[in-house]
């Protein structure tokens, strides 16, 4: 069962990567990266159980934090671009 869940998550990760490549807008890409990050958290927790040493869940915690931080960062700096663009077009 664990291995089946791991495989499912791997498939979903591949789908997310495809969306990052296709993604017409920046936000599609951010969404896919965010999803990819969440799936990585799950993958790591599952891998810990599959390999029989589940005490390394700290890594998964770090992942969920870092995922959040990078999404905020992307939004923050993409706002910057929107702002710049609108400023330029108004000039």
């Amino acid at each position: 069962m664990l291995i089946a869940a791991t495989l499912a998550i791997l498939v979903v990760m591949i789908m997310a990567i495809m969306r990052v490549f296709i993604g017409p807008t920046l936000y599609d890409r951010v969404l896919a990266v965010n999803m990819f990050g969440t799936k990585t958290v799950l993958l790591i927790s599952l891998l810990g159980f599959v390999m029989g040493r589940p005490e390394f869940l700290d890594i998964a915690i770090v992942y969920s934090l870092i995922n959040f931080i990078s999404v905020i960062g992307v939004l923050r700096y993409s706002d910057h671009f929107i702002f710049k663009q609108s400023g330029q077009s108004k000039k």
Partner: protein
Amino acid sequence: MKDLLAVAMLLSIYGLLSASFFVAMDAVDVAFTEASVGAGISTLLMLVAISMTGRAEHPSRHKPLLALAVVIVTGSLLIYGTLDMPYFGSAEAPIHQHIAPRYINDSMQEIGVPNIVTSVLASYRAFDTFGEVVVIFTAGMGVLALLSVVRRSPVDIAKIVLFNDAMHERHLILRIVTKIMIPFILLFAFYVQFHGDFGPGGGFQAGVIFASAIFVYTMLFGMNTARRVINQSFIQVLAAIGVLLYGCVGVVSLFNGKKFFDYSALAIDPVAGQHLGILFIELGVGLTVASVMVIIFFNFAGRNETPRNSDKQDL
């Protein structure tokens, strides 16, 4: 891809993927570091830099054929070179014969720390790690020297204030959730710092996580607020204190009649001395890494959005 922001996204995914690969390869400490560094901080720095240098890459006018030829020749030579290498995962490979068995078998008696990576990092190869910490410190100083110069082109102050106001109104939910999360991130950083002897973790990782909490704060509440919370010159002193703390541990053991970084001199019981030494060294590493990362980020972000006046006041 021409859009550099998309490149940064893909780099972040690459970091996440390589970190999960490290977990699969049993390198939990490395995965820890790569998770916080490769996926988080390097993406952020890349984004800040792109926001300053412009988003679009010019259409290429180069001839890729020559480069491709060079790459293919080098690659095939390297592949030819691997044909003699030991197979993947074989326990008889030369790399596993010489010093690793000593670390695996004896480190529990000699150092008394279950995490072998920590004991090798902080005790057996402490001098090496000292060098790395000095390199990080120097890189931080380099960024400081390059970016703390006041820039000549005037910045439109009104525009920036407007922008910051817009940010604050829009991200109310984000700000509140972040306010709740930040103490936990900091707490988790301390856990990683002091739990490094027993599980994955240690000074490097803790420093990076600590710094990333400050990054979030800076991104959401603006540079000026963050400057008020965290004094820049204090952070610079802190970075130096970290390196000095590391060096001092070595000097103390030198004065006590042992070798440089031989921590058994620190206490009567050699194993307790090792514990104490590793604790101090990890603390030094954590301080340096966290403050250097904060210095780097403040200089990047500060160049982006602070008006000139406040820059002058800071000087």
